[in-house]
């Protein structure tokens, strides 16, 4: 018997192992195709979760352990840099609340990375449960196996993921797992308890079958696909269905003149450049600062350009270097496929390095880096180093219209608006930011405004403003549909109206991933379709921060929901204690601002201490009373337990109830003082019971139970027939 147990433990271990392998195939492409890094953490979680299921601990323990693993992983991934474990817990809770509110608003792009990872963990958790259910309970895996294959092949077809070996792996482990499961199903069906002798007989053909089919499939000649790449076909189908292009439509792409925006665009697949990136980021080309009512122009033409050479630090200051922005050094490689004199670079660029025969210069107004007009050239291959920012929300939330301390010239330049801007734009801006008291919250309100208010992304049916129309006004109030220029320009105008310094940025999105590149980089292809415009806002003591108002686009920006250091928090602590009469200050704060001192660990602990100090006597009293009640209930259980059992077992008419009811009766009789001796058979025992109760009920009931236990058959309707007997007996045990 023990031998069989070992055997079945081993077999379920094998099942779990292959279940893990199948799940792994789902995770593998994620690393390559998305921005997800640290995939091993998720794999580790899968392993731990399946292992815990395998050892079969109590489900509550498993739940706690898995939840703990998730929290720990999130902590290691997102919080270790700045905070201790307990402090991070409070921030994690804060971030959860924030994300729940975002989810309620269906503002999906706003979800933070931590929360996305959390959701992914939960998804994996569900998957492990399903795997366990399929493998151990249902003994069927075909559907999951098929889905895995479909998933892999679809990815292989439509993405750069190369699934050649993934398919082989999946088929081999899928076949194995199905073979093993069939074996167990057969064993169970035939009620063979010692499967050991059959295991070998089954294993050998199974393995040889798999290897034969694998070998045959691998060695057999394979025809070329009759449909080499369905992707262009599908996109062309999409274009055809859109109807013929109308006259006057421009092709999408990068242009220098933005003074007259508006009008429809046609897609253009021409590749501009390819890039290898560690992280997805937008590519900037230039920024513009003056809104004319029709479009954008630079504030100063022909300004003195700043020359610098390849590999030298670029003269662009993106962030204020005072610790409010944590940065990590990264680099991306660009290979130009169209000829432009300018260079693409991400926000936070530090150096541009390429063919050293070229010198570069920076147009300080546009922040455009290009080869000098005196010595023009086209740099085809270059690398860009940049600092990837992680902004402190505390610092971002520190400034507002009254308190920004910015140089007035700078401030006016980036809050410039035409004098004839329609008043309703100002009114709208004031309305949007009315409930926020700092720039960061305000600009995020504006950023979200477009998706909340149902503005539509469209490249075709886009109006050109008439001679008396304002470009932004037309989009915001009349047409309500447009593409990136409409959204980004409108956001800048609204933000400037609210007094927040912003500028308009032109460039490209990250494009489409085509392959995995060197190191941890992925290779992206950027076409004219990826030409884009967005918004940057300036925060004092922080620097420039990107915002993405356009529907359907995301440009993930990392924020730190931190407090800068401990001093800061203790200061705030003092402030609040000093100002007990000003609670209204706190009320306007949203859970996102991270400054809220309601949720710091010390504050919570203080509150808990207060509560304990105030109520411990009551709590101890309640506890003592409860304990006494439970003890009393236990000692007097003879008074009420039989009633409880009568009620409990009468709820169901199922025959299985009879068994439990009978065994409960035995226990109750023992409690009553009529214990059965070890070597006493049920029949002898029931004679004793019947003798002492002067009935025949126990013998009659026992005869039924004997039939079930020793004959292996449970009569239909037995519980309905015997309930009366049972009830008579259990009532006799009432003390």
């Amino acid at each position, binding site marked *: 018997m023990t031998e069989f147990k070992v055997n079945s433990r081993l077999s379920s271990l094998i099942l779990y192992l292959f279940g893990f392998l199948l799940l792994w195939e789902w995770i593998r492409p994620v690393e390559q195709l998305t921005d997800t890094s640290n995939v091993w953490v998720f794999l580790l979680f899968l392993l731990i979760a399946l292992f815990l299921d395998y050892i079969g601990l109590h489900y509550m323990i498993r739940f706690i352990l898995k939840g703990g693993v998730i929290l720990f992983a999130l902590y290691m991934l997102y919080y270790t840099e700045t905070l201790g474990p307990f402090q991070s817990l409070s921030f994690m809770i804060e971030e959860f609340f924030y994300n729940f509110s975002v989810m309620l608003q269906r503002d999906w792009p706003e979800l933070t990375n931590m929360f996305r990872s959390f959701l992914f963990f939960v998804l994996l958790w569900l998957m492990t449960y399903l795997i366990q259910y399929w493998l151990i309970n249902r003994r069927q895996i075909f559907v999951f196996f098929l889905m895995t294959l479909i998933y892999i092949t679809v990815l292989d077809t439509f993405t750069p993921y190369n699934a050649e070996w993934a398919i082989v792996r999946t088929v081999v482990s899928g076949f194995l797992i199905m073979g093993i499961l069939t074996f167990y199903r057969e064993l169970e069906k035939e009620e063979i*308890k010692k499967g050991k002798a059959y295991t070998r007989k089954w294993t050998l053909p199974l393995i040889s079958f798999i290897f034969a089919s694998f070998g045959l499939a691998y060695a057999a000649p394979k025809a070329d696909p009759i449909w080499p790449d369905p992707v262009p076909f599908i996109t062309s189908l999409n274009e055809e269905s859109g109807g013929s292009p109308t006259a006057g439509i421009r092709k999408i792409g990068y242009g220098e003149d933005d003074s007259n925006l508006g009008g429809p665009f046609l897609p253009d697949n021409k590749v501009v450049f390819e890039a290898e990136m560690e992280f997805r980021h937008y590519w900037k080309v230039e920024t513009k600062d003056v809104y004319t009512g029709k479009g954008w122009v630079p504030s100063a033409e022909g300004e003195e350009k700043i020359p610098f050479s390849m590999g030298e630090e670029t003269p662009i200051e993106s962030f204020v270097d005072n610790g409010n922005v944590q940065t990590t050094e990264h680099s991306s490689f660009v290979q130009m496929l169209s000829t432009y004199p300018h260079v693409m670079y991400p926000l936070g660029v530090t150096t541009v390095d390429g063919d050293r025969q070229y010198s570069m210069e920076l147009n300080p107004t546009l922040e455009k880096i290009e080869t000098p007009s005196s010595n023009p050239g086209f740099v085809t291959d270059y690398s860009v180093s940049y600092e990837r920012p992680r902004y402190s929300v505390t610092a971002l939330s520190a400034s507002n219209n009254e308190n920004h301390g910015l140089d007035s010239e700078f401030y006016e330049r980036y809050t410039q608006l035409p004098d004839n801007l329609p008043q309703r734009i100002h009114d709208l801006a004031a309305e949007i930011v009315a409930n926020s008291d700092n720039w960061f919250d305000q600009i995020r309100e504006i950023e979200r405004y477009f998706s909340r208010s149902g503005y539509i992304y469209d490249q075709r049916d886009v109006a050109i403003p008439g001679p008396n129309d304002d470009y932004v006004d037309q989009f915001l109030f009349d047409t309500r549909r447009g593409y990136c220029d409409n959204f980004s320009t409108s956001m800048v105008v609204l933000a400037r109206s609210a007094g927040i310094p912003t500028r308009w940025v032109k460039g490209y999105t990250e494009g489409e991933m085509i392959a995995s590149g060197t190191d941890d980089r992925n290779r992206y292809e950027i076409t004219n379709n990826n030409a884009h415009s967005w918004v940057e806002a300036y925060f004092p003591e922080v620097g420039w921060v990107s915002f993405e108002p356009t529907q359907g686009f995301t440009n993930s920006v990392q924020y730190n929901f931190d407090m800068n250091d401990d001093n800061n928090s203790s200061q705030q602590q003092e402030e609040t204690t000093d100002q007990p009469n000003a609670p209204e200050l706190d009320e306007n704060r949203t859970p996102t601002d991270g400054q809220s001192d309601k949720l710091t660990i010390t504050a919570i602990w203080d509150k808990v201490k207060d509560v304990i100090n105030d109520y411990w006597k009551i709590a101890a009293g309640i506890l003592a009373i409860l304990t006494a009640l439970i003890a009393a209930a236990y000692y007097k259980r003879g008074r009420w337990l039989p009633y409880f059992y009568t009620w409990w077992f009468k709820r169901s008419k199922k025959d299985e109830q009879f*068994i439990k009811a009978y*065994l409960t009766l*035995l226990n109750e009789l023992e409690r009553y003082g009529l214990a*059965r*001796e*070890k*070597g*006493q*058979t*049920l*029949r*002898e025992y029931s004679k004793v019971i019947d003798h002492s109760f002067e009935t025949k009920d126990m013998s009659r009931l026992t005869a039924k139970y*004997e*039939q079930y*236990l*020793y*004959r*292996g058959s449970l009569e239909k309707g037995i519980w309905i027939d015997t309930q009366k007997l049972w009830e008579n007996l259990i009532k006799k045990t009432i003390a």
Partner: protein
Amino acid sequence: MTEKMHPVIEQVLLNIEKVMIGKRKVAELSLVALLVEGHVLLEDVPGVGKTMMVRALAKSVGANFRRIQFTPDLLPSDVTGVSIYNPKELEFQFRPGPIMGNIILADEINRTSPKTQSALLEGMEESSVTIDGVTHILGKPFFVMATQNPIEYEGTYPLPEAQLDRFLLKMKMGYPAPEDEIEVLTRVQKQAPIEKIESVITLEALTSLQEQVKEVYVDDSIKRYIVELADRTRKHASVYLGVSPRGSIALMKAAQSYAFIYGRDYVLPDDIQYLASAVFVHRIILKSEAKFEGITAEQVVERIVATTPVPVQKVVK
């Protein structure tokens, strides 16, 4: 027991009771053995009705009854039969011995030499005997009821333990109760009642009953219980040699048969407990110190039965 007996068995028992008064339990156990083709060893002093019992049983089932009176000078060929040269036909002719019957009474088996005992015991085990190179299949059913005088009597050859194992059951007759004995006297006054009884079932019917007994269901929990009992005899402090797996099998078969007699198609722990002594006692060898202390095998088995937990729930696998 308030259960209804199997009607055919009931008739057989009633038939036997016409002859044997107050010995229903012994008759029942003999039937238990007969139904599973096992053999019975009756141990008791002479004159308590052992022979009468077997004859009554044989007559009731219409079986061919043979009796072998074992004496110290009995030869194996007296049991199995012998080939005799027939000068008329110039060849050896086989003259079957008393073992070629259906129901054999081997009276006072411990009075003869081990050599002759073996001749019988081998026939019991293999259901065939080989004489002069020719194998003779014994009758079916083949049922041996051996009797022996308690071994402390003089001039006996005790049966080896290995051969005792071949008997399904060992039981004692005991003296009849005074009232029963008076009734016996009354009955034999005119004519021995054994002459009057007739068969109630045929041999074929008996064979079919034997087949039905095999179908009696034995639950896993019961099998576990049997094995647990056997195992405890092996581990018992007073026991030198415990019950073999053959003993476990014997107990299960006997229990099936007993359940069948009582009209059940499944075995109860009560059956096991009832039969444990009869099946186990003669298979146990006690340590000599236990014997000196006056412990008997019966006591050991009783103790084990009383302390081994009876299965009252399904075994959780």
